[in-house]
C-alpha cells in the first residue's frame, strides 16, 4: 500500500484545530439556542415567583398602584368603548341575514349578547390591551432598564419589582375585567343600533331580549378569564421590559415581544379556559 505523503504537517494541524474550534463554536451556539427557550421559561417562572412574593410583602406601593389603574383603565377606555360599539354593530349586521333565513331575527339580541359576553368581548378587549398596555409596559420598563433607572432604584435599596412590576401587574389584572364590562355594554349599544338599521326595537326591549338569553354561567367563567388575561398582559409586558438588553434597539424589541407573546398567551389561556368551562359547566 502506498504511504500517504503529508506535505505540510503544521498547516494540516492548524487547519484541523481551526475546524475543530469552529465546530465546537457551532455546537455551543446550537446548544445556546436550544437552551434559550427553556431558560426564558425558567426566568419567567422565577419572575412570577418574585411578583407573588413582593405582592404580599410589607410597604405595598398603593399610590403607584392607583396611578397605574388610572393609566391602564382610564386611558384605555375610549379605545375600548369605540371597539366595543363597532364589534356589537358589525356582529349584528353580519348575523342578521343568517338569522333571517331561519326566521329567527328576534333571537338576534340574545345571540349577540351571548357571543359578546362569553367570547368576543373578553378576547377582543384583551388583544387590544395587549397591544396598548403590554407594548407600553415593555417599552417603558425597557427604556428604564437601558437608561439604568431600574439599576438606580435597586442600588438606592428600593425594590424595583415591588414599585414597578407588582403595581402594573395588579392594575392590569383588576382593570381588564372592568374594561371588558365596558366593551360588552357598548357592544350591546352597537348591536341595538345594528338591529334598528333594518328594524324597530326599543332599547328597553332590546336589553330585555339580550339579558333574557344570558345566564350566570355565561357571565362568570368569562369574567374569571379576563382576570387571567390582565395578569398575562401585565406579567409579559413587565418581564419583557425588565429583561430588555442594551441599547435603544432593545426597547423596541421588548415592546414588540411583549405584544406578540402576550397575544399568543391570551389565546392559549382562552382555549384552556373554554375547555375547562366546557368540562365543568
Amino acid at each position: 500500500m502506498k504511504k500517504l505523503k503529508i506535505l505540510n504537517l503544521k498547516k494540516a494541524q492548524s487547519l484541523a484545530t481551526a475546524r475543530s474550534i469552529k465546530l465546537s463554536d457551532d455546537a455551543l451556539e446550537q446548544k445556546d439556542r436550544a437552551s434559550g427557550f427553556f431558560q426564558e421559561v425558567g426566568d419567567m417562572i422565577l419572575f412570577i415567583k418574585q411578583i407573588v412574593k413582593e405582592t404580599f410583602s410589607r410597604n405595598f406601593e398603593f399610590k403607584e398602584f392607583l396611578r397605574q389603574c388610572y393609566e391602564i383603565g382610564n386611558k384605555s377606555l375610549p379605545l375600548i368603548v369605540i371597539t366595543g360599539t363597532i364589534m356589537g354593530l358589525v356582529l349584528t349586521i353580519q348575523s342578521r341575514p343568517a338569522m333571517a333565513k331561519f326566521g329567527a331575527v328576534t333571537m338576534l339580541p340574545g345571540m349577540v349578547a351571548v357571543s359578546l359576553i362569553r367570547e368576543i368581548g373578553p378576547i377582543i378587549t384583551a388583544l387590544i390591551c395587549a397591544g396598548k398596555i403590554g407594548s407600553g409596559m415593555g417599552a417603558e420598563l425597557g427604556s428604564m432598564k437601558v437608561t439604568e433607572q431600574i439599576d438606580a432604584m435597586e442600588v438606592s435599596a428600593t425594590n424595583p419589582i415591588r414599585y414597578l412590576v407588582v403595581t402594573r401587574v395588579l392594575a392590569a389584572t383588576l382593570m381588564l375585567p372592568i374594561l371588558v364590562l365596558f366593551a360588552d355594554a357598548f357592544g350591546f349599544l352597537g348591536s341595538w343600533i345594528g338591529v334598528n338599521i333594518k328594524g324597530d326595537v326599543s332599547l328597553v326591549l332590546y336589553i330585555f331580549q339580550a339579558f333574557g338569553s344570558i345566564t350566570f354561567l355565561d357571565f362568570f367563567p368569562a369574567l374569571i378569564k379576563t382576570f387571567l388575561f390582565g395578569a398575562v398582559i401585565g406579567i409579559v409586558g413587565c418581564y419583557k421590559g425588565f429583561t430588555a438588553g442594551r441599547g435603544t434597539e432593545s426597547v423596541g424589541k421588548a415592546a414588540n415581544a411583549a405584544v406578540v407573546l402576550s397575544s399568543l398567551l391570551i389565546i392559549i389561556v382562552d382555549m384552556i379556559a373554554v375547555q375547562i368551562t366546557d368540562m365543568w359547566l
Partner: protein
Amino acid sequence: MKNEKETSLDPISEEKFTSEVLIEIKNLKKSFGRLEVLKDISLKLHNGENLVVLGKSGSGKSVLIKCIVRLLNPDGGTINLLGENVSSIKGAALSKLRMKIGFLFQSGALYDSMTVKQNLEFPLVRIKRELKEEEINNKIKEVLENVGLADVLEKMPSELSGGMRKRISLARSIILDPVIMLYDEPTTGLDPVTSDEISELINTVQKKYKTSSIIITHDIACVRITADRIIMMHEGYIYAEGTLDEFEASDDPLIMSFFK
C-alpha cells in the same frame, strides 16, 4: 506586584486618609459568556480617600463597581464591603448595605417620569419612613444647595441640561448620607468646564459628607482634580497602582498614552 501585568510604581501614600479599609476586593472575576471582563482584580478603598479607577473603554471599570453593589454577580473572588461579604448576603441585609452606598450612574439615571423633587424624595420616603414632610423638604433643599442648584424642584429631567442632570443625580445619591460614593464616569458627555465643575463637586461632597469614593473615569482632568490614589485597569487586570505624581512621572507607554 499585584499580578504579572502590573507595573512597578512606588508604594501608595496614605497620608490623607485613615488605614481603615471600607472595601476590599480579592481576585475578582467576571465573564459574560465567553468574554472574560474581569480576570483578577484585587483592590482596597480606605476611609476618606478618593480612589480613581482609570482605564480604556471596555476594560471592565463599570463592571467592577456594579459587582461591588451586586448589580452584577461576580463569578469568583470576594468583595468585602463595610465588613460584609457582598456575595453571601441578600434580601434585607443587601438593601441595608446598599443604603450606605451612593451610586452616580454614567447616564445620571434620573427617573424620567418624575419631577426633580419626586426623584430626590423617592429613596427618602421609602427608606427613612419616619421622616416628616417638612424634614424631607429640608433634606431636599440641603442636598440641592450642596450641588449648587435651586429652583428646579418642579422641573422634569428632560428640561434639564446634561450638567444639571448630573448634579441632580449626585444630589439623589447623597440624600441618604452614604458612607461610600461610587461614580461611574461622572464627566462623560459634558463640556470641559462643566466636567471640571462636577469633578470639584465630587471633592466638595467628599468633604461635606465625609465619604470615601471610587471614581471610574478615563477623563484625565477629572483624575487630576479628584484622585488621592489611582488604579489603572487593562484587559481585566490591574495594570498599575499609585499616586497622580507617580503616574505622571511614569514612562510606561500605556500610562503615557493617558497622561500625555
